[in-house]
């Protein structure tokens, strides 16, 4: 393991040195080996500007309430900290910059460097009350406009039982309604131009095509979208807050419900981040099982995308075919895990159970039948000329814009950038598999669909390799922090019994530290940044989801288009609101 000194001497990027060569940052060691530096708020902007050429994407930005944290060796004193995670697409890896704040603190905004910072900073303000100087519109984003307090602060109650009983009086209802009213002036919009009076239309939060509870306030000239303001937070359930009171183990089912189409794919970054902190090595069989199930869920999610995409441009039939396939797929998932959409089946150190007898026959049947069906769908939907007219050239953005706005996954690859985390930085055993990274060149709605559909084929390829080469061996690690621990010897020796009892009743105690783990999820890069204070629960659970920045981009790519184009764009982004709001 690297020491703080080693990082400081050898790898400190130039951007972290001032003119006279002195270091502006203090290094911190993390369990995931991502170079992490503490920087003073006044230097932040300069440092970030220097880092941007090497690390072009602002991958994540979030706050941590440091006030109750006991184990922070070598870290500057802080009430709150703001964490910036920058991504490089070269072999440089990532870098993490942290800023310590003493309450009431403020940091300079980074909106001028990365437009994607806008929503992230609003979120950090919403959750912690951290002020970002110079932010153009620092207002609540996830919590309702009239919410009191900042929900992720430690003093904010986590359960309803810790608060006064909730009552919605007439006055409160009116006030809430009033606060939800869209006021164009707050967003710097004019109500009319020289020629025309604009119409403001609330698309959502309940609308057939917004895939959940998502509101877009549209400024319309006729049917032409002049500007749009996406409004999120209607699906916010405080998943990050729940992470702070659930045990490490019992939080797994919550992760399933983040990207609810991704199933166990959500478990993967979470359990891998814990395994990194705990130093658990996962056996090969468990790795391959995890990959196989993740890829099955990738197919499932992409099938939903495929069907709804066709449906949203007005094609009625494809969705039924794709849902029928998804149903077959769920049959396999159910046979293996017992669950369907939310199996919560991965465990710290492995998976919940071994594969059932006959699993390979089911999987083989599915992957044998799928390619022909995909060809059929291709003819039915993707080659349809009206569908092409509706989506080719609509909602275009290029690679540079995608990176500026934090777009990952198929949305990034559709711009021609061949970058898939599974290939670029193989995790969890993906380096053992042979598959291609599909790309497209146009970066429009149609290309995003093309990429996803090709990904289904690649996933089938990966699954076939899993079936053909499933290793023998344990499905769970022998490590003492594996949860629940292997039970076969518990009734024979007292040590194992005690471990089992404690790990099951209290849950495992994960060593203090910080770790983030990133996966190529169905919709883009998904990661869990976990902070352990050496307890049975997480001190801070940060969930970085791909859909969040994708939605932020909607106004950019929909201006000047018409409402039906906006619907096509929404469909092509492929998001679920649970993944956005958490």
């Amino acid at each position, binding site marked *: 393991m690297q020491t703080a000194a080693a990082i400081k001497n050898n790898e400190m990027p130039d951007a972290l040195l001032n003119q006279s060569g002195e270091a502006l940052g203090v290094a911190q060691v993390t369990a995931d080996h991502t170079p992490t530096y503490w920087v003073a708020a006044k230097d932040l902007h300069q440092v970030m500007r220097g880092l941007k050429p090497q690390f072009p994407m602002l991958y994540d930005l979030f706050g941590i309430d440091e006030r109750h944290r006991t184990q922070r060796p070598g870290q500057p004193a802080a009430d709150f900290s703001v964490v910036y995670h920058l991504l490089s697409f070269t072999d440089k890896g990532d870098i993490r910059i942290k800023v310590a704040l003493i309450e009431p603190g403020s940091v300079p905004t980074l909106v001028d460097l990365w437009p994607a910072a806008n929503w992230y900073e609003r979120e950090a303000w919403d959750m912690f009350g951290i002020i970002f100087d110079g932010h153009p519109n620092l207002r609540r984003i996830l919590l309702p406009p009239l919410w009191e307090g900042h929900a992720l602060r430690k003093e904010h109650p986590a359960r309803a039982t810790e608060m006064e009983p909730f009552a919605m009086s007439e006055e409160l209802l009116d006030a809430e309604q009033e606060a939800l009213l869209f006021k164009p002036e707050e967003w710097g919009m004019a109500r009319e131009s020289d020629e025309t009076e604009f119409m403001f239309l609330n698309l959502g939060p309940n609308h*057939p095509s917004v895939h959940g509870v998502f509101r877009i306030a549209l400024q319309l000239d006729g*049917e032409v979208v002049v500007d749009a303001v996406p409004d999120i937070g209607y699906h916010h359930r405080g998943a990050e807050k729940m992470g702070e009171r659930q045990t490490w183990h019992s939080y797994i089912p919550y992760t399933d419900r983040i990207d609810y189409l991704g199933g166990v794919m959500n478990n993967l970054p979470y359990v891998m981040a814990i395994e990194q902190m705990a130093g658990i090595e996962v056996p090969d069989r468990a790795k391959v099982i995890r990959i196989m199930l993740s890829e099955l869920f990738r197919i499932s999610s992409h099938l939903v995308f495929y069907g709804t995409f066709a449906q949203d441009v*007005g094609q009625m*039939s494809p969705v039924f*075919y794709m849902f029928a396939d998804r149903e077959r797929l769920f049959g396999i998932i159910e046979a293996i895990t017992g669950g369907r959409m939310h199996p919560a089946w991965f465990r710290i150190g492995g998976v919940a159970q071994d594969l059932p007898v006959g699993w390979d026959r089911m999987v083989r049947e599915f992957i044998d039948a799928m390619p022909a069906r995909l060809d059929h769908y291709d003819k039915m939907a993707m080659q349809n000329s009206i569908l092409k*007219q*509706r989506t080719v050239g609509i909602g275009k953005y290029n690679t540079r814009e995608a990176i500026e706005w934090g777009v990952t996954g198929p949305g990034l690859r559709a711009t021609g950038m061949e970058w898939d985390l599974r290939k670029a930085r193989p995790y969890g055993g993906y380096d053992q598999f042979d598959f291609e990274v599909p790309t497209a060149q146009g970066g429009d709605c149609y290309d995003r669909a093309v990429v996803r559909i090709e990904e289904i084929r690649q996933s089938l390829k990966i699954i076939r390799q899993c079936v053909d080469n499933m290793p023998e061996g344990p499905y769970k690690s022998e490590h003492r922090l594996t949860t629940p621990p292997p039970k076969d010897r518990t009734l024979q020796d007292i040590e194992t019994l005690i471990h089992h009892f404690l790990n099951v009743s209290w849950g495992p105690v994960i060593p203090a530290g910080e770790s983030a783990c990133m996966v190529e999820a169905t919709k883009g890069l998904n990661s869990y940044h976990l902070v352990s204070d050496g307890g049975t629960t997480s001190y801070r659970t940060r969930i970085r989801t791909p859909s969040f920045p994708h939605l932020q981009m909607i106004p950019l790519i929909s201006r000047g288009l018409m409402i039906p184009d906006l619907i096509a764009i929404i469909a092509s982004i492929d998001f679920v609101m649970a993944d956005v709001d958490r």
Partner: protein
Amino acid sequence: MSVGATIVFSLVLLLAIVGGAAVLTWFERRLLGIWQDRYGPNRLGPFGILQVLADMLKLLTKHDWVPPFSDKVVFIFAPTAIVVAMMLGFAVVPFSPELYILDINIGLLFFLGMTSLAVYSVLLGGLASNNKYALLGGLRSAAQMVSYEVFMGLSLMGVVMLTGSFSLRDIVEAQRDGWYCIPQALGLYVFIIAGIAESHRLPFDLPEAEHELTAGFHTEYGGMKFTMFMLGEYCGLILLSCMITTLFFGGWLGPVLPPIVWFCLKTFFFICFFILLRAAIPRPRYDQLMSLGWKVMLPLTLINLVATGAIALWMQGA
């Protein structure tokens, strides 16, 4: 037919159309089910046909709500317009040599007039709802229907030229030597497309466009008034199929079977065809639909018109 017989036949026809439209809702869902790899309503009664009854009961017993912010009189008037106009349209359809209500020398124009009046239903519904989605739907429908009415009318003029009459019975009789679907193939093509646009069904359901405008012009409608819109839409579908049969496929003409059976069979075929279209084709964008109309449909109909006229004159000369 005597006056008494005409009245009886009108009543029978009225019942048949309303009943047919109701059964069609079930039939469409079953047919879509077959094409979409699923079942459709199959629980209630034999083949699920009682679903029609259940749906009707449900719609009839729903709260008959008029939004307080709407223009109430127009709001209630709007859905009736489409039903009345479509029902009247059936008056000129010759079901067989003996079975018809009206045989006027402007029968075809009467049909066009009734379909153009049906537009008001959508338009006024959208206007009276005082809802932005409904308004957008109404605006779309106004532009769409006025445009497609033009092509619809023009596409039929070839048939009129060949027959030399606007009377639908004359048109059928004139097809004894050959159906007009062959000499008037272009006209048929335009008429079918314009017909779907007029009846605003998928793929040209832009005034409703569930995925864009929630439900477009009938966003605020529910219960009986919504039923009227649906009834109007299905009547329009049946009427359109009847007209295609009459104008291009020889109406009641056919060997062996009685004329009325031939007429019903042909009409049924086109109803199925329209349902298949709905299942198969995505919805174009509003401006794409309009440019298809003015840049493709209009030139096509004009070419058809000129060519038909020239050939008709040449035939006369020869």
